[in-house]
């Protein structure tokens, strides 16, 4: 049984945000939605302080609170473990947004154009206008582990996590290879091997007991 998952090695992340941009371009997410942001934070104390980076995305939880919260059934887990938000079915109740401890769900509020400091927005770019029209206003969307790439790859005999065309855009783009993707149930997959060689791994908000399939190496 295939169960897709990702490991992110925080020791390798340099905060370049290439994954953030690659995701934005690949998925054309609504203007205020960033499915794969990289959070910057400071660790240590002067003179030993340094910047650290935390790439975030949907954790594709095995016990996903968003699925339990959704009244319309728009959120569901595929057989391969990927959690999908179906915008056609979503009614915009946003219970999933409050239930997710990772902020992985984004409401398309019908805005376009970058938010400026005074609360106004600038004129939307062509890309922003396209993204605005591509999504249904009032619905929630999220990271899909680039399910369309995975599905394309598996249909064409490619291996997600190994062949770039079948691997999530954020993983392919990362210049430091801090993101590793693959089948968690396959001991020979890149992600399983990475965990054996570089583990242990941890998850965000372990107290939330979500069974996250996105894990981190080097989590504080």
């Amino acid at each position: 049984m295939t169960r897709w998952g990702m490991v992110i090695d925080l020791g390798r992340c340099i905060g370049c945000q290439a994954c953030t941009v690659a995701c934005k371009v690949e998925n054309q997410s609504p203007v205020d939605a960033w499915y794969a942001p990289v959070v910057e934070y400071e660790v240590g104390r002067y003179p030993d302080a340094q910047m650290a980076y935390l790439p975030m995305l949907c954790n594709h939880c095995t016990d996903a609170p968003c699925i339990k919260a959704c009244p319309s059934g728009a959120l569901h887990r595929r057989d391969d473990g990927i959690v999908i938000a179906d915008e056609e079915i979503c009614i915009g109740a946003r219970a999933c947004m409050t239930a997710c401890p990772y902020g992985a769900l984004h409401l398309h509020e019908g805005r376009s154009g970058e938010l400026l400091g005074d609360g106004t927005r600038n004129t939307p770019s062509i890309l922003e206008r396209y993204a605005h029209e591509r999504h249904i206003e009032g619905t929630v969307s999220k990271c899909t582990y680039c399910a369309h790439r995975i599905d394309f790859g598996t249909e064409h005999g490619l291996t997600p996590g190994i062949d770039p065309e079948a691997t999530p855009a954020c993983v392919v783009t990362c210049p430091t290879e801090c993101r590793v993707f693959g089948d968690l149930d396959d001991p020979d997959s890149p992600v399983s091997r990475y965990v054996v060689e570089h583990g242990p791994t941890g998850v965000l908000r372990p107290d939330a007991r979500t069974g996250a399939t996105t894990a981190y190496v080097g989590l504080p």
Partner: protein
Amino acid sequence: MSAPVSALPQNVFMDRWALEPKTQRVWGVNHAGWFTLMGIGGGVFLLGRIFDITLEAGRVLGLPIVDVVSFVTIAIGGLILIADLGRPLQAWRAFRNVRVSIISWGAWADLVFLTFGGLLMLPDLTFGDSTPFSGLGWDSHATSGIGRVMLVLASIAAVVVMVYAGAVLARPRSIPYWHSVAIPIQFLASSLAMAMATLMLIVVLDGGDVTRSELLATAGLTAVLLVTIVVHLSTRTTAPGKKESIERLTRGSLRGTFLYAAVGAGTVLPIVLGLLALGFDGGAREVLAVLTLPLLVVGGFLLRLDTLRAGIYPPVVSLLEAAQR
């Protein structure tokens, strides 16, 4: 100049520093409104029957005014809920995920209540001398078998309507202040107390006398609310996320509306008034009893609104541990 909150995305994790505790921006005034209205509606229906007020109090167009109040408040609450959806015209889909979603249970409970609660009183509908639905085979007294079945179904639905909003908040672990059985208990106790006060107003407006048991019920239910609030505020006080919520409610920006208004004026004072009213008869008792209503309703609304506003996500990783790394 910083952007007004209304201009910001509802997803607070999009703020730059995601390692700080973050206040949810998804649910607010509208949700507090429908939580409150549905609580009152469910409680009025249930307690009106339990205290034999429904069939003794006045009628409007032949319908028991207690049931009408209950029906209308839940209907308005439902309309607010629907209007707040991102896609209101797709609201029917909320019935789909009843296997796992508490909101779906709530949607069904609203529908069942409005259907059977409405049908139950329908035979009594009177226009002048005409009672067009009197031949339906049951009445609002639920004396027939089918009437009793409707009453039971509507009563069960009324309980679910009162409880499910709190259960929706309490179920996920994302927001520690919400993730507690105390929240649905608070919402239930508040709903029943508001409903009891509403019923006392109906009794007074109908020229009846407020009874000792009605006053004791109001004070008792409000006391249960007070106890659950105090217990919830004094347990797990150092848990990440909940600690910040409690600070905001008791010492921070919500202190005025929560501590003074919702707890002080909206919970403690109605208990005092209810107990005080026991010592009086006639007009003074009724004035004190009726005074509890605005206090409980405003307090109940603020309790729900501040519970939502105090919904804080803890950092996804511990800053303290990160700082010590």
